[in-house]
């Protein structure tokens, strides 16, 4: 196990390096620069700005300087939000997205797996169709349609919850965004669980257990759940990273200061250092959670060897 972790950490370094390099140069190839505005800046002003942010040096030099800085933990100043460094902005936004994301993830797993399992047990009956159809609405309708509907019902019509804001993160500000984010993933988890659970329930050893007279709930919990979770666990890695790093749509509609909005705005503003900083963070998180997922896979299916 230790060897596994060590190997992964060693592999993470070249992976991140390649990611940084590709992203760095990809951004420089995209047209537009961080300081352009509707008002064309006179060349001498442009020169001063470029000198201040090091953009007047050759791209390769900037790349090397940037790498050197990262190794010391300095991800640079934000080009757009001139009062802050990248570290400060990410440190402020990440907890918001992570909190909502984590709650959404727990909610999604429990609800999604439960729904999928019930549908699998009652395969092709009206229970199956009803449950799955309801869950499916979360997938087929985009969040920019569902979230305003949620707001309209709970905030404007019933006035039970605030229509947005974070205010330091009280439960009433988390609950609607959490539901908004989960809707998409609940359906996905439910369908994958259903498919996988049906396949598992048709196995011989489950048939043996039924023949022995064991009840379905017991069979599910003790025998079927673990192997059926295999595709879910595989999907969980990227899904978890996606949920934690937030959805720009949800954050825009609910006015949350999260990473999703920060990242998309940074890309639109060509805020190179902020985009790179968040990209590295996403890359590191992806690598980490994929490693966790691989460990879980080996736990679920003892025959799996990497």
């Amino acid at each position: 196990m230790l060897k596994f972790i060590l190997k992964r950490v060693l592999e993470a370094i070249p992976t991140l390096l390649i990611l940084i390099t590709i992203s760095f140069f990809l951004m420089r190839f995209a047209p537009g620069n961080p300081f352009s505005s509707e008002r064309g800046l006179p060349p001498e002003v442009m020169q001063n700005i470029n000198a201040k942010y090091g953009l007047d040096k050759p791209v390769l030099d900037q790349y090397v300087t940037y790498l050197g800085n990262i190794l010391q933990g300095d991800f640079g100043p934000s080009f757009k939000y001139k009062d802050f460094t990248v570290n400060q902005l990410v440190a402020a936004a990440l907890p918001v997205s992570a909190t909502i994301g984590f709650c959404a993830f727990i909610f999604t797993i429990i609800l999604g797996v439960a729904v999928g399992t019930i549908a699998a047990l009652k395969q092709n009956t009206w229970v199956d169709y009803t449950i799955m159809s309801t869950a499916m609405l979360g997938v087929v309708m985009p969040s920019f349609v569902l979230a305003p509907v949620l707001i309209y019902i709970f905030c404007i019509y019933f006035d039970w919850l605030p229509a947005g804001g974070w205010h330091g993160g009280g439960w009433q500000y988390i609950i609607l965004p959490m539901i908004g984010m989960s809707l998409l993933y609940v359906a996905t988890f439910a369908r994958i669980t259903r498919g996988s659970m049906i396949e598992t329930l048709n196995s011989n050893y489950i048939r043996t257990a039924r023949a022995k007279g064991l009840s379905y709930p017991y069979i599910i919990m003790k025998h079927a759940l673990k192997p059926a979770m295999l595709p879910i666990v595989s999907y969980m890695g990227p899904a978890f990273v996606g949920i934690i790093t937030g959805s720009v749509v949800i954050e825009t509609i609910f006015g949350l200061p999260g990473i999703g909005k920060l990242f998309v705005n940074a890309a639109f503003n060509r805020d190179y250092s902020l985009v790179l900083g968040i990209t590295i963070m996403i890359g590191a998180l992806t690598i980490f959670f994929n490693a966790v997922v691989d460990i879980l896979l080996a736990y679920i299916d003892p025959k799996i060897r990497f």
Partner: protein
Amino acid sequence: MIQKKANLEAVEKFADHLEVEGRSLWQDAYGRFIRNKAAMTSLIILTLVVLAVIFGPLLSQFAYDDTDWYAISIPPSFANGHYFGTDSLGRDLFVRTLIGGRISLMVGILGAVVAVIIGTLYGATSGFMGGRVDRIMMRLLEILYSIPFMFFVIVLVTFFGRHIILIFVAIGAISWLDMARIVRGQTLSLRGKEFIEAAYVCGVNKKTIVVRHIVPNVLGIVAVYSTLLIPSMILTESFLSFLGLGVQEPMTSWGALLQDGAGSMEVAIWQLLFPAFFMVVTLFCFNYVGDGLRDALDPKDR
């Protein structure tokens, strides 16, 4: 034991005349699929939708880009020919919904096909090969997953201009990533099963094992997940429009119609309702077909 030689000959002749057709697993699957009522109904509805988006616009007196300043955002009515009402520029929503369907269906289906082909092969190979090959392929996947998609699209447009093919390249580039991971997971599990061991021992080469044994057995989960991908691809296309790559005005797609409709939900709900209805019905059908395929392809289903 059969005593009489004559009887023996008669049975042998009889056996020769019997046409015993072997039934392959694919034929089994086909049969099961046909008998799945939900899946077949969905297939029929899908066919109707496809016919509607191809021929429907011909039934209306309006073109999809006919603006009408005096018919802005009017509700649906049979009388003036605007069956689904009009949008904020007075364009007929009936025609626009159907025309939008053309792009969205194309994007959805082609995107799913790309995801299935590339994702399945990549994931199956990675999972089956194991060891160093698997590790390198997975790290590559992680890199591709983390690259900021927006810049990739902008650079694509900068270097290649805006061709409709690029939409599919862009969508195809990210759609297969999740699929590959899921297939890899399934493959890792399948790899340890006895029948794979048996094939290996029989001397079947690795490529054939992957294509003939692994892939058909992961098709169940692939069918389910690919139909789950279709809605996200339709929405990615509208994000691409935002970046200037997707369809340009006055052409439209369901994603674009939904975005416009969501903004005017309180004042002109028909602008959201009709495209949403079409999208929901179509995607539901795709999903039932996907589930039907999964059920049909499951070798363990009686």
